[in-house]
């Protein structure tokens, strides 16, 4: 039999350290739903999602009971809608978003991702329609999430798309001004977007994926932080070892849930995403791990190095625990969703510039950051370009999910509640990037892309 210490370690992780499964995400291919008639296409999409994901929530809840482990979100990702809607003649794709929303509500999932377009090299007519539909689509739906991939290491950066996405982010925020610009929190602008990411708002079911897959996102910053308190003052070798061991255990749980969920649902097990995903709950913070390593407040000098170690050790520990690792698999540093990050910003320890530096060594980018409402579209585009350049050059995924909160400025905060948390408005550079963004065209793929 297992010994009491092992059993109690698991119980403590679940009870005190807030260990949970962040998400079980079902990826569904919609490639057979394309139709010349938009109405007919939407009917097929709705039926397929409801048919495939009808039991998703029930099965996830059964697993929660069986293992007594919370599964915080149940989600669906679908093929990028721009690819499916392209066959029809509709002038915009807002109705497609509404169909996704209805299907998500019918099966009871928290979010559905895939109102997406992949435009890293250029845009089709359908991509343009989709991107132009994003603000209304997100404002008129509750559970739909959208993402746009504007660059890859192989293709370089599509700066026309970057320019447009700055304007789209602004529009999203303005259309939902009464709710703190919440629509912008459901939109991610990617470079090197992964095809099997279970996390929102950036999840979509890539074209290289199968018919239906189960991808699982773990959580567990609290468990890592708790493990580190036992090696206070020890050298970094010890810190890395401790994180690796904890990440292994956490990931094994994710693997167990992925296997069980896919078996019960009769679909292929996809990947386990190793990302340490924080929540606004006390004790579930990535910032606190960095502080446990010895920086007084997240954002102080040393934070980037601490994060680099954390991110690497989590992967090394996690990779052996799962048969297939994928998605984003890196430490998340969303501001509004992490109590320690919020506090660091409020103390003046953490700036946008420092966050940008941190994203060079971890997943996934500038995430859930509230900006002053007066921030221009060009500045947001320039933030996207900087972040995408980091991803492009470093062969990694980066993303931007910022919310220019209408009517708010530095010193104020916006509250979303739930997993989205609350965010202090962060300062952005007051100097203009207008001429830079106005150029358009493409930033060529870097030399790193020529590996063949």
């Amino acid at each position, binding site marked *: 039999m297992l010994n*009491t210490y*092992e*059993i*109690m*370690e698991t*119980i403590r992780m679940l009870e005190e350290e807030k260990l949970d499964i962040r998400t079980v995400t079902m990826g569904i291919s919609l490639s057979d739903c394309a139709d010349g008639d938009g109405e007919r296409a939407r009917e097929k999409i709705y039926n397929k999602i409801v048919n495939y994901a009808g039991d998703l929530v029930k099965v996830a809840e059964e697993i929660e009971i*069986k293992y007594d482990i919370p599964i915080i979100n149940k989600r669906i990702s679908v093929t990028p809608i721009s690819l499916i809607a392209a066959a029809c003649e509709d002038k915009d794709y807002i109705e497609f978003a509404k169909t996704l929303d209805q299907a998500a509500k019918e099966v009871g999932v928290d979010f559905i991702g895939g109102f997406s377009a992949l435009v890293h090299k250029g845009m089709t007519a359908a991509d343009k329609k989709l991107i132009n539909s994003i603000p209304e689509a997100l404002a008129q739906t509750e559970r739909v999430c959208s993402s746009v991939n504007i660059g890859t290491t192989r293709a370089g950066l599509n700066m026309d798309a970057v320019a447009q996405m700055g304007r789209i982010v602004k529009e999203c925020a303005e259309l939902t001004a009464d709710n703190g610009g919440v629509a912008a929190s459901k939109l991610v602008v990617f470079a090197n977007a992964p095809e099997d990411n279970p996390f929102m708002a950036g999840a979509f079911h890539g074209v290289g994926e199968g018919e239906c897959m189960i991808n699982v996102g773990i959580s567990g910053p609290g468990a890592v932080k708790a493990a580190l308190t036992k090696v206070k003052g020890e050298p970094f070798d010890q810190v890395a070892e401790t994180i690796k061991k904890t990440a292994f255990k956490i990931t094994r*749980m994710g693997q167990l849930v992925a296997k069980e969920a896919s078996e019960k649902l009769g679909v292929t097990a996809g990947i386990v995403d190793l990302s340490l995903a924080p929540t606004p709950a006390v004790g579930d913070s990535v910032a606190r791990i960095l502080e446990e390593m010895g920086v007084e407040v997240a954002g102080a000098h040393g934070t980037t190095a601490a994060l680099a170690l954390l991110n690497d050790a989590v992967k090394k520990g996690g990779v052996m625990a799962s048969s297939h690792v994928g998605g984003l698999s890196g430490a998340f540093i969303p501001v509004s969703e992490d109590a320690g990050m919020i506090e660091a910003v409020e103390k003046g320890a953490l700036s946008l510039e420092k966050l940008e530096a941190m994203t060079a060594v971890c997943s996934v980018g500038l995430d859930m950051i509230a900006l002053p409402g007066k921030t221009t579209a060009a500045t947001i585009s320039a933030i996207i370009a900087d972040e995408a350049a980091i991803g492009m050059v470093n062969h990694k995924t980066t993303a931007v999910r910022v919310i220019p909160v209408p009517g708010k400025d530095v010193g104020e905060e916006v509250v979303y509640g739930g997993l989205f948390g609350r965010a202090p408005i962060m300062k952005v550079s007051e100097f203009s990037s207008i001429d830079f963004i106005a150029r358009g065209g493409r930033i060529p793929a870097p030399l790193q892309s020529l590996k063949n």
Partner: protein
Amino acid sequence: MRAIITVIGVDRIGIIAEVSTLLAEANVNILDINQTVLDDYFTMTMLVSLEALEISLEELKKELVESGEKLGVSIRLQHEDIFRSMHRI
């Protein structure tokens, strides 16, 4: 299926009696039982077989939690695989 039941809390007379009576009534077979005091807390772990369980897993868990509340201890029941997968390669 085999599950692990953990009982954690302040020690008092009758905890094991109460829990094992409840389990017997639900037709749950106790395979192994281990009791110790960890960090000042009474800690009991039980390996049980649920093959002949006569109520649903959800109901059994509810009853255990309720009886834990009466006894002033925290009781959990989890499939043993969660511990195995975490602690055995």
